[in-house]
């Protein structure tokens, strides 16, 4: 017989000792309309400057080509959806890395970074130009004989807004999708009002003269082709050149890939809806308003007074009393400031995200990943991006068309690398499941030959090639910038080879906030769904059961609790034999990756316990779960696990009747279950 005084009989509560609730922003998912709003804040903002820049490049034909480019955004969006169906955490680097290899991925990243380096300055300066235009309109209205100097004020505003968002990003204030939605709602309202006034004006004026189709290139817009007169004479080449000068309207499309990770279940369907909204909004907002501007504003004024604030020009030339026009211009300016400022912020966030993604793979040295002591942000990257943007703003002296000339390089070459990779992956990763494929495919044996994809590749490659010739500034600055970045990446990768290997060996690790709570009620207080499922996890490489639950979960009102019962080494009473604690950060990193693949929010918790089955039962009871789901254990086997959970559950009932619950053990193609 044992000495009873030396033996502790654990009570029910004794089996759970310490609860940790894990939280991360990575588990917050947004609906399609918020995702569309985030993309449009960047992509839609080009409506404010594209028309003017295109007009300066090839004359009055610009609205046709801006409209045409907006049509091209449709197939590009579809290509991006296919990329998202392959990579939840996409972006240019992983996609091109998989498709074309690491060297090309580095080059592609360099071109996207070039795009981001110029998106901020062009957006900031454009916003400044709209403010100047409005203030000068007010001076005119009040007969004040003074005009603000356009470019100087625009540069000051661009610097101020860049510094503001630099500080916000250093502090790590997350970009809010709610804020983006409000900006887009306001912009839609502004767009509608402007549309109504523009249509009424056209009806009142009658006799609408459509802009010419033939582009008239300025000397500067011919670039290296200045001495190749045959190029403008061959119609199709001229058309391509005009499209090349309008392509900056597509800037910001990459944001769609960045935002995909955050989209809620069903992810691809929601992404498709978001892409449709983006396409319609961009076509109407950028294409439509640019077209209406060309019909309403006299051509000479577009080239002179309104080349840098085209939509203000539209507001000021509709048929309405002057005061109403001023109000319209004010609305346009507010929408412009909001969207363009959003684009400045997105450019910093985007560049920071892309460089971080590269740094995570070990390609960049630790210098880039250095964390700010107080705010925990990667401040070296943010500082570098913002310094580069400030240099661009100052160097441009507020000349928006100069930046516009350079801008298209990054936009186009990132498309080239990305769409080419997507097409290559059709053959390279043909077995990888795609929830969405770019339309127009021919099935041949095991392949879906992407005819539609090939066409998109041909179009963007042609545009990129023609831009290399016609956009001198873009070619020189873009190639130089990309070459410098590529060399930095290359040297950094060599210096960091050992670290990269360690990162690869260790695998992905998510940053998790850990909050210790006193009791299970507090740990589960965040549950709001009508029903709950408890999923017990332990092995980072055995999460089939967790994935199966998420795959089959169509009910958004069900809370999914993901629980790890962590065995405690120095707690021997009643301890289950042979169970050792595992690396919980690896476990939950994998849980988060799976959750974001399906876009389902989950509640990760970790309880310290000497018996996982008691702990699982206790948490399930407290949560009033309708299901307990476990993966099969290599040590016990499914039947033994079910026996243990049945025993633990019934002991813990302690005379109180509980709600019916089903315990399930799932493994590849099999399931055993028991209903209590």
């Amino acid at each position: 017989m044992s000495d009873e005084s030396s033996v502790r009989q654990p009570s029910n509560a004794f089996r759970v000792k310490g609860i940790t609730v894990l939280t991360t922003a990575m588990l917050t998912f947004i609906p399609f309309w918020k995702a569309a709003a985030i993309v449009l804040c960047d992509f839609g903002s080009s409506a404010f400057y594209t028309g003017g820049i295109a007009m300066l490049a090839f004359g009055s034909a610009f609205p046709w080509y801006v409209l045409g480019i907006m049509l091209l955004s449709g197939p590009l969006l579809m290509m991006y959806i296919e990329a998202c169906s392959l990579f939840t955490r996409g972006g240019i680097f992983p996609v091109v890395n998989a498709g074309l290899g690491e060297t090309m991925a580095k080059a592609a990243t360099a071109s996207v970074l070039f795009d981001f380096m110029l998106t901020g300055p062009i957006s900031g300066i454009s916003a400044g130009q709209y403010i100047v235009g409005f203030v000068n309109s007010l001076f005119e209205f009040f007969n004040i004989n003074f005009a603000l100097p356009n470019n100087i004020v625009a540069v000051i505003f661009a610097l101020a807004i860049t510094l503001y968002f630099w500080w916000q990003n250093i502090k790590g204030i997350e970009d809010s999708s709610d804020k983006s939605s409000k900006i887009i709602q306001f912009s839609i309202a502004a767009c509608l009002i402007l549309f109504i006034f523009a249509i009424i004006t056209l009806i009142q004026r009658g006799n609408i003269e459509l802009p010419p189709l033939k582009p008239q290139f300025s000397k500067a817009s011919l670039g290296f082709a200045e001495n190749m007169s045959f190029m403008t004479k061959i119609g199709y080449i001229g058309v391509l050149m005009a499209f090349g000068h309008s392509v900056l309207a597509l800037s910001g499309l990459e944001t769609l890939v960045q935002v995909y990770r955050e989209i809620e279940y069903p992810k691809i369907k929601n992404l498709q809806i978001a892409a449709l909204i983006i396409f319609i909004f961009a076509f109407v907002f950028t294409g439509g308003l640019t077209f209406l501007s060309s019909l309403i504003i006299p051509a000479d004024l577009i080239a002179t007074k309104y080349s840098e604030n085209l939509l203000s020009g539209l507001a000021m030339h509709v048929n309405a009393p002057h005061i109403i026009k001023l109000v319209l211009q004010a609305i346009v300016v507010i929408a412009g400031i909001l969207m363009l400022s959003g684009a400045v912020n997105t450019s910093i966030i985007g560049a920071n995200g892309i460089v971080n993604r590269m740094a995570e793979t070990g390609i960049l040295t630790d210098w880039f990943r250095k964390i700010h002591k107080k705010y925990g942000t990667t401040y070296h990257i943010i500082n570098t991006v913002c310094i580069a943007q400030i240099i661009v703003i100052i160097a441009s002296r507020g000349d928006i068309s100069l930046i516009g000339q350079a801008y298209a390089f990054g936009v186009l070459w990132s498309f080239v690398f990305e769409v080419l990779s997507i097409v290559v992956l059709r053959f390279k990763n043909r077995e990888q499941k795609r929830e969405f494929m770019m339309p127009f495919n021919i099935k041949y044996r095991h392949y879906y030959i992407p005819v539609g994809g090939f066409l998109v590749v041909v179009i963007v490659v042609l545009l990129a090639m023609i831009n290399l010739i016609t956009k001198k500034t873009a070619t020189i600055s873009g190639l130089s910038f990309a070459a410098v970045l590529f060399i930095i990446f290359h040297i950094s990768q060599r210096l960091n080879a050992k670290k990269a290997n360690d990162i690869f060996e260790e695998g992905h690790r998510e940053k998790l906030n850990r909050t210790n709570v006193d009791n299970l009620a507090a740990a589960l207080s965040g549950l709001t769904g009508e029903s709950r499922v408890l999923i017990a996890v332990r092995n980072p490489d055995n999460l089939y059961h967790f994935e199966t639950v998420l795959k089959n979960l169509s009910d958004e009102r069900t809370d999914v609790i993901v629980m790890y019962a962590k065995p405690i080494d120095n707690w021997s009473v009643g301890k289950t034999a042979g169970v050792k604690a595992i690396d919980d950060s690896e476990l939950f990193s994998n849980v988060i990756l799976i959750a974001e693949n399906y876009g389902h929010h989950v509640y990760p918790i970790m309880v310290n316990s000497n018996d996982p089955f008691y702990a699982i039962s206790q948490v399930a009871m407290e949560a009033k779960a309708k299901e307990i789901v476990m993966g099969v254990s290599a040590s016990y086997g499914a039947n033994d696990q079910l026996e243990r959970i049945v025993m633990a559950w019934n002991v813990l009932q302690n005379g109180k009747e509980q709600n019916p619950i089903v315990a399930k053990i799932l493994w590849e193609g099999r399931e055993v279950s028991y209903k209590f």
Partner: protein
Amino acid sequence: MLTQEENNISVVLNEKRIFIINNNISKTDLIASLVNAACDEQPSIDKEEILSVVLKREQGISTTLDTGLSIPHARIDDLNSFEAAAAVLPRAITDEYGLQIKVMFFFLSPSGSVFFPQHLRLLAMLAKKFSVSFINELVLCADKKEIVRKILF
């Protein structure tokens, strides 16, 4: 056979197979005694083999519950019915995981998959029925075997 609602262990436990153990005994010896008792009407069953299966299982995953009830068990191929034996231990013993055993309920069930739900229901019923107060009541009355039987059935 045993249904979920059924809370009567007489369905599987013959009253001749209830023991009150007052002397010091190890967990292994106790299980061995109960294996012998449970298999007394099954001459074709290899008791040694069953004992080794049960002991091996106990090493991997203990069947001792917090209440003081231990439920060693096994699923056997050549069996067509449930066989059980139980022991009340007024002088509790301590298992290898530091838990006290005051009552041990040993049972064998047929291994066929159709019997597995019944097997689980029996475990559920035992875990639920043998609460701390129920076990304490059994232990208190351990000197009167008749009362123990009455409480159990």
